[in-house]
C-alpha cells in the first residue's frame, strides 16, 4: 500500500504550480515534502485530497486512482487531509470539531475509542472539550485538526504545514507526535513543510520541490547530509 504520484501537472490559475511531478510514498513511513514558499506543496496536497483538479498525470493510493474524486469520498476511504491554517471550525466546540470525522462512521464504538485515543495523544484537548475552538492557541488548534483527522481512522494522512505560526517548542512537540503516529495509528504520513530541516529530521523519506518540480528525492538522512541539497534548499 503506497501513494504513487506520476507525471502530475497542476495549474493554479494562470500559473503552472506543479510540473510533471513524480514520487512514491511508501506505506507506514513518514515522507516529508519540502520546499520554499510557492514551490507548489499546498497545491499538490489539495489535488491529492480532491480539493483541486489536475491538468494531467496520475496519483494512486493502494493501486486506485485518487484524482478527480470527491474530497468527502476520499476522506471516507481513509485519506485525510489536514489543511494549512490550523483547519478547525472556530465557531464549534472542541468536542463538535472532533465529532465531525466520526459522524458518518457506522462503528460508533470505535469512534468513541478513537476519540479516547486522540485525547490520550493530546491530553489538552480533553480539558478543552466544551470550549469554542476559536479560543484555542495555535498549537492547540493544530492538535485539534490532527486529532479530528485521526478519529476517521485514516490510512493516509496528508499534513499541510503543521508548524506554521507555532512557537519552536510547540513545533518540536507536534513533530514528535506526528512521528509517533506512524506506528501508533498504523499510518502513512505525507508531511508538507517549509520548515525543511525540522521535517526531514523526523521523516523517513523526503521529496524536495522547487518552483513546481521535484529537484531531489531520497531518504531523509541522505537529503539532510547532501551538501548540494543543504546549501540550495535547506539553508545551511
Amino acid at each position, binding site marked *: 500500500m503506497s501513494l504513487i504520484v506520476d507525471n502530475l501537472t497542476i495549474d493554479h490559475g494562470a500559473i503552472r504550480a506543479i510540473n510533471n511531478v513524480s514520487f512514491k510514498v511508501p506505506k507506514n513511513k513518514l515522507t516529508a515534502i519540502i520546499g520554499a514558499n510557492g514551490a507548489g506543496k499546498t497545491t499538490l496536497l489539495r489535488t491529492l485530497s480532491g*480539493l483541486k483538479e489536475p491538468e494531467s498525470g496520475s496519483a494512486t493510493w493502494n493501486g486506485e486512482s485518487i484524482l478527480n474524486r*470527491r*474530497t*468527502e469520498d476520499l*476522506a471516507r476511504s481513509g485519506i485525510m487531509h489536514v489543511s494549512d491554517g490550523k483547519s478547525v471550525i472556530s465557531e464549534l*466546540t472542541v468536542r463538535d470539531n472532533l465529532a465531525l470525522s466520526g459522524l458518518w462512521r457506522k462503528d460508533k464504538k470505535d469512534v468513541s475509542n478513537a476519540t479516547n485515543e486522540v485525547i490520550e495523544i493530546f491530553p489538552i484537548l480533553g480539558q478543552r472539550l466544551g470550549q469554542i475552538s476559536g479560543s484555542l492557541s495555535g498549537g492547540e488548534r493544530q492538535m485539534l485538526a490532527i486529532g479530528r483527522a485521526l478519529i476517521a481512522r485514516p490510512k493516509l494522512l496528508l499534513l499541510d504545514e503543521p508548524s506554521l505560526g507555532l512557537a519552536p517548542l510547540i513545533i518540536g512537540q507536534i513533530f514528535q507526535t506526528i512521528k509517533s503516529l506512524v506506528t501508533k495509528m498504523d499510518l502513512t504520513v505525507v508531511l508538507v513543510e517549509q520548515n525543511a530541516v525540522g521535517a526531514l529530521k523526523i521523516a523517513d523519506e523526503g521529496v524536495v520541490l522547487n518552483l513546481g518540480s521535484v529537484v531531489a528525492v531520497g531518504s531523509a538522512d541522505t537529503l539532510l547530509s547532501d551538501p548540494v541539497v543543504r546549501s540550495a534548499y535547506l539553508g545551511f
Partner: protein
Amino acid sequence: MNQFITAVLTSLSSGAIYALMSISLVLVWRSTRVVNFAQAGQAVFTTFIGYEVTIRTGSYWVGLFVAVICGGLVGAIIDRFFMRPIFKRVKSGPIVMIAPVVATLGLLGLIQSVIGFIWGFNYVSIEAPVSTQGYKLFGTVVAFSPFNLMVLIVVTIAMLLLTLLFQKTNIGLALRASAFSPEIARLSGIKVDAVRTLGWAIAGAAGGLAGMLYVPGSYLHPNAMDVLLIFGFIAAVIGGLDSLFGAVAGAMVLGFAINFAASYVSYKLVFTTAFALLIIVLLVKPNGLFSSSKGRKD
C-alpha cells in the same frame, strides 16, 4: 392599558411569522451565501397546495402538514436541480457572486407565473382552524385572537424542534459545520452537497409553515408572500443574517416596532417603520444587532 397589551400580543404573533420567513432565508444564506428571493414564491406555491388540500379534506391541519412537507420537497428540488448546477457551471468571473441571486429572482417570477397559471390571479382565503375574533379584555375586544395565540404556539414548537435538530443531533452538527466551513466539513468526510440540500429543504418547510400561518389572517394570491419576504429579509439583516437566534430576535424587534408604530401612531407607518429600522441598523450596526463572530453555536 388594553392598547399596550394588544400591541405586545400582536407584535409577538406577527413577529413569530416573520421569524419563520427570516429563518428560511438565513438557513439558505449561511449555507450557500445566496439571498433566496424565490422563497416568497416557494412559500406561496406550497401554501396554495395547502389551500387545495384544506378545501378537499376539510382540515386545515392536514393542509398545513402537506404544505410543510411540500415546502421541504420544493426546497430540496430547487437546490438539487437548479442551484447546484448553477454553482457547478458558474465558477469564475464577476458573474460568480451575482448569478445565484439573480437565478433566485428569476425563479421567483417563474414560480409566481406558474401559480397564476394553475390557480389564477384571484384572491382566495383559507379558513382558520380556530376563531380569528379578538379576545375580550376588560370588556373590550382586542386585536389578538385564538388564531394569533395558535400561531405563537405553533411557531414556538417549530423553533424548539429546530433548536433540538441543530444542537442535539448529528445532522444538526453536519448542517452547522457545512455552513461555517464547507471545506473542513468535506475534509472531515461530510457530504456537504447533500447537507446543503437538506438546509434548503428545512428552509422550504419553514416557508411553507409561514405561509399557512400567515394566510388565514390575510389572503392568498401569487404575490401574497412578497411583503412577508421583505419583512423576513429585514428581520434577518437586523439579526445579523448568519444566526438562527438572530433571525428570531430580529423578527421580534421588527414585529414590535411595526405593531407599536401602527398601534400608537398610524397603521400607515408600517412600511416606513420597517424600512427606517433596516436603514438605522445598517448605519449603526451593519453586522446586525445579534451577530457575533465568535462563540456562535446555533
